[in-house]
């Protein structure tokens, strides 16, 4: 018998740390206030995959799934969740409290394009808001700004090179 079948509850944690809990086995009903509403996942030729909720259709896509991490496109907005069991959630809390606060920031390409210029080198100190890279996409030159104060430890972006969306350009150790 699979150990997992004993699980009674699951938690979906959003990237902004909001927690949604669901009982297992998962029902096609969601309780809001005192009422249960039916939620249905459907798919047909005309609409593709959608969720039916309170008589309205919402387009959905599963953009990515890796282990327990899911990126869902719901009504044209992406959400990223990690789904945790009561055990993994407990384990995560323990890990978090012991983790070093000095973290790495990976600067990713916000869109596919071509690197035109890189303004920093490994070891450079950068300030929040400082332009680090120029990325050209659809003939527009976009400045990619540093999201944090810190020190550049890896520069993977090279001028003249094409990148895909979400390719890591620069890694910064946060001050």
């Amino acid at each position: 018998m699979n150990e997992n079948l004993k699980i009674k509850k699951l938690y979906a944690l959003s990237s902004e740390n909001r927690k949604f809990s669901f009982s297992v086995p998962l029902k096609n009903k969601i309780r809001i206030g005192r009422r249960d509403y039916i939620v249905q996942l459907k798919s047909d030729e005309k609409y593709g995959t959608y969720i039916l909720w309170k008589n309205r259709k919402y387009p959905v896509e599963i953009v990515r799934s890796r282990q327990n991490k899911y990126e869902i496109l719901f009504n044209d907005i992406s959400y990223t969740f990690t789904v945790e069991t009561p055990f993994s959630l407990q384990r995560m809390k323990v890990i978090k409290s012991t983790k070093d606060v000095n973290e790495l920031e990976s600067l990713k390409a916000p869109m596919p394009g071509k690197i035109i210029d890189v303004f920093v080198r490994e070891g450079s100190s950068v300030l929040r808001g400082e332009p680090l890279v120029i990325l050209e996409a659809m003939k527009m030159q976009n400045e990619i700004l540093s999201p944090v104060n810190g020190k550049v430890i890896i520069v993977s972006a090279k001028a003249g090179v094409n990148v895909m969306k979400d390719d890591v350009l620069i890694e910064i150790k946060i001050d």
Partner: protein
Amino acid sequence: MKIKKILIANRGEIAIRVMKSARKMKIGTVAIRTAAEPGAMYLSFSDEIFDNSEDVSDIPVFLDIDKLISIALKTGSDAIHPGYGFLSENAYFAQKCFDNKITFIGPSPDSIYKMGNKTIARRLALKIGIPMVMGSAGNISDVEEALTAASKIGYPVIIKAASGGGGKGMRIVRKEEEMERMFSTASKEAEKAFNDPSVFIEKYIENPKHIEFQILGDTKGNIIHLGERECSIQRKHQKLLEEAPSCALDSSLRKEMGDIAVQIARAVSYHSAGTVEFLLDSDKNFYFMEMNTRIQVEHPVTEAITGIDLIEQQIRIAEGEPLSLKQEDIKLKGWAIECRINAEDVQAGFAPAPGKIENLSMPADPYVRVDTGIEPGSIILTTFDSMIAKLIITGKDRKEAIKNCKMALDKVWIKGTKTTLPFFRMLVRNQKFQDGTFTTAFIEKDIEKYYLNSEYEEMLAAWLATKLFVEENLLEDSINVDFENGKEMSPWLLNKRINQF
């Protein structure tokens, strides 16, 4: 002289738009099939198709002057409509058409050249006393010159491409220290986009409204305006929503600005449809910015409130007909709003989100007009622009137009790429937008979140993620299929993965 057959030197929705008016006027049309979009929707609207799909050169055919002329001659087209973008504001192309006895449906090469070169346009406008913001006398060739000009004008300043448009080659400089970097990006961008690195500098007006006037002129010297459009909802100088009329103008300001717009057009003996753009500051001072010598993306909002088919007018003027409309015939009726539904990721700062459109369905209510060149199966390519559709919504007044807009947005169904829909859903509910007090700084300064969602939507997405986790991990009979990137669990997930960009 009557036009018999028009070669459409464009693609997408504007190609279809032109063909619709041509059909109404019983004029034949020729569309060009390209290698990039051999099955595109616009092809099914033309009377004839010229197959150019064997041509795989890097330059799109819509930018290849010699090729277009030869296609027109081969297909017996006696006129060319350039649409917008591509060669629509290329004086050399207009001249080449003339040299080959093909009617260019647009203004004269001379008008295009003078208004296309911002430095010449400024000089012309100055000469006839049009109000303008302070700027450099001519083009700026290096950083030193830029610094001198900027300190004379006073920061903030804006660098603009001399041959520019569409926000490309444009940068705001707030401090002297930023000049070197901004000058070089603006100039590089200008060279890439317009094949001309020259730029000039102007005083930057903080928080203005972008107001433009639609002009129509014939070849006999009659010029009228069809009222204004407000295009202040823009991001990085790319317009997202336009409306007509503007709630910032009353009838006396409309008359004053409209008269000046006509004067500017007259300065270059303008004929065809054109647009005179102004900045309007918070004290209702207005400044001439530039004139666009083509049909614009946002022309339908003017059509909606005037009842005039602008493409038909362009064709009639090109045939040499005098304008049948006089200024006093132009009555603005109701309100119109255009939302540009683009394949862009609002959550990633409006980054292009190319991809294949899997499902698409648009509202069919009487208050909605949809201009699109995209259908299910179409692919949004990075080669061209990211437009999926223009939603033009009308109402008897602004309030009703916004209400109708809200309803229409919820009826649009697009699957396959991310779109600007969540942005518009937020916008139509925003207080400042409803009040009409927004400026071009709205997106950068006045909103916290670029999109609208409710907590229910996030909760439903969480439910779906949990459902997937359950199917994948907790069911004994779960089907695990191994793919390169990991496990897949359902056929509908598979669909998405296969079509991923």
